[in-house]
């Protein structure tokens, strides 16, 4: 009480002004807070509820327990989608990080024409995923694109038919997605690299550390927050991937390149099985949460620890 008494006295002097100062920022946040409460969390809750009903053509409120989930787990096409997401997600994130980091380090060597190069590697990001998909669809089609061109150049034994091969088609999605996103990851890493205090590096060099040593022991570890945001971005992009697959393979051959997002759209809207679609959506959200939570916790813990030092 003794500590806060001067502050209280001040508040008493201009009570209205004080109170307004304290509440105005909070009031101004209310509309957007309400909006996100309804349109994000409200609809998440509604989707979870729908996944527990037997909604078919239109949403209904007939509770059906976990029936939709049971059916979902029996469907071959759901498991194909999940396995595809695992293959696609892991390769996409790993390759994007590797290429992004490599290109960023190369670009950081104070080379000439960096502005030019930056335009080139950022360019794919400016294209929509639909365009990327269509372009790669023609490039990878065996009778029109790469295979045809190489064969007509004389290498008649050359074969690259992943796009039409049900076992390999998911990897063509990885190729196109990596092409699209790795430039963006490069930009993230480059920004991170530029933000590192050069005096630390100079100090290490004075101590006689070699360049690879400097990178592995100082620079890459200090890019940790960049890794964190890049992975979060890429994982969520991977889980909600939809348009690229639609444009590139149409989900085919057959349903061999389906991803959970395509499953959700197709069952929910085209096939009139809203309950199943909602169950798929709920599981997708759970997957995002599961992927993010450990990382978020680790990151927050790290920050709190950092503050106490």
């Amino acid at each position, binding site marked *: 009480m003794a500590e806060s008494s001067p502050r209280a006295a001040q508040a008493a002097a201009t009570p209205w002004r004080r109170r307004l100062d304290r509440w105005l920022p909070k009031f101004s946040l209310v509309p957007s807070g309400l909006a996100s409460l309804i349109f994000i969390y409200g609809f998440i809750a509604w989707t979870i509820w729908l996944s527990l009903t*037997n909604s078919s*053509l239109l949403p209904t409120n007939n509770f059906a327990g976990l029936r939709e989930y049971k059916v979902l787990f029996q469907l*071959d096409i759901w498991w194909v989608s999940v396995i595809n997401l695992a293959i696609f997600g892991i390769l996409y994130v790993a390759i994007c990080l590797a290429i992004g980091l490599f290109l960023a380090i190369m670009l950081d060597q104070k080379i000439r024409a960096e502005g030019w190069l930056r335009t080139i590697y950022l360019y794919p990001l400016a294209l929509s995923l639909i365009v990327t998909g269509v372009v790669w669809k023609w490039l990878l*089609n065996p009778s029109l694109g790469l295979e045809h061109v190489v064969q007509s150049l004389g290498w008649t034994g050359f074969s690259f038919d992943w796009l039409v091969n*049900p076992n390999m088609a998911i990897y063509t999605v990885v190729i196109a997605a990596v092409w699209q996103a790795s430039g963006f990851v490069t930009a993230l890493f480059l920004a991170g690299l530029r933000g590192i205090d050069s005096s630390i590096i100079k100090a290490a060099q004075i101590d006689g550390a070699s360049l690879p040593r400097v990178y592995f022991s100082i620079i890459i570890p200090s890019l940790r927050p960049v890794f964190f945001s890049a992975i979060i971005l890429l994982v969520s992009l991977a889980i909600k991937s939809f348009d690229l697959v639609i444009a590139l393979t149409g989900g085919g*051959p*057959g*349903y061999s390149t389906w991803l959970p997002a395509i499953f959700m759209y197709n069952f929910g809207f085209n*096939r*009139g099985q809203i309950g199943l679609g909602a169950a798929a959506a709920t599981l997708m959200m759970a997957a995002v949460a599961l992927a993010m939570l450990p990382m978020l916790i680790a990151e927050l813990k790290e920050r709190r620890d950092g503050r106490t030092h």
Partner: protein
Amino acid sequence: MRNQSILRKSVTIGLSVAAMTVGGVALAAPSKGSVSVLNWWTSGSEAKSMNVLQQMMADKGYKMINDAVSGGGGSNARTVLKSRIQSNNLPGAAQIKGPEIQQWCTTGLTMNIDKVAKQQNWSKILPGPVAKGMQCNGHYVAVPFNLHRINWLWINKSVMQKAGAQMPTDWDSLVAALKKLKSAGITPIAGGGDTWQVATEFDAIAIATGGADFYRKAFVDLDPSALSGDTMAKVFKRLRTIEQYEDQNGQGLSWNHDTGEVVQGKAAMQIMGDWAKGEITNDNATPGKEIACMAFPGEHNGFVYNTDSFEMFKSSHSDKNAQYAFARTALSPKFQRKFNMAKGSIPVREGVSLKGFDACAKQSQKDFTAAEKNNALVPSFSQDMAENGAVKGAIFDVIAKFYNDKSMTPEAAAKAMASQAKQAKMMSQM
């Protein structure tokens, strides 16, 4: 001064915009009421046909609002319809086909149009199965526009000659021709890849192999013994044969690309519904002349049909009289001729002259009449005519899996079809 000139300019622009709008409305005035029509007919000839309908209604004083939503096969339009229902903004009529007509009827939102049906005597002028498909609990709720035939085989005659192949008459002669074409270095069949295209092929093979009774038992009644039996296994076996003669790199190429391949002579045949005719004429060939048309050959004759239709909704913002007029005009002989000539289908109502239609349409009409007499008229499962979306999707999944997984046996595929169709049926009925 400057402000004044800006004002004057904006007034002029405003007036000219208003004038243009008035010009547009003048076409429809005097208005006896309006009807909004939700559809997915956005391609050139289809949009033109809708304009014809709009004009014909305007001539009688009704305003038709063409709410076209683009997107293949109508999946976007379906989503729009659902969201409009949720927000209580129902269209007067929406493009809905097959068993979905009955599915929507159970929501209690559909409108009874028995009055128009009586006036035009629909029970007489419409083919039995089609008329039945437009009803719900004994009342007409939807209006049919056309009749497409699914089980067609399109053949480039000159390519066949070049390869020394005979025109097929039954399954064995078809396989012999395919062999000859392949050894001559020509792609025997354009197509494959897209699941709906494969399903369309399966549709044609199924009626040619098993006949109408088998087809109905399997795809309309979902009889487990028909779905998993020997005949179905035979249909799958034949699909495997067809697959082996198809363009192995065809994945992801659209059906009209494939039709183009046939017209240009890069491929010899295509199994596709009669909307392929539009592409054939676009490429300066004549259906029935350079490109022969025949029912897909096999042991049985039959007619697998696909009917586009519009279901009417009550408590929409449309006027009832305009909704009636829409249904009436759609089935008028004049519109039926104009519309179906452009779309490649045949008139759904009887007593419409086929003068000016191409040879394949005339063949279609002849086969249709014969099929109706012999009870060999069946609704196409691949075009949403026999089953609802859930069951159709389940059948498609099995066909796609079999087509792409060369190790799957026809027997296993037939068994999977029976169990998955049953499950989907159960799910969508509850």
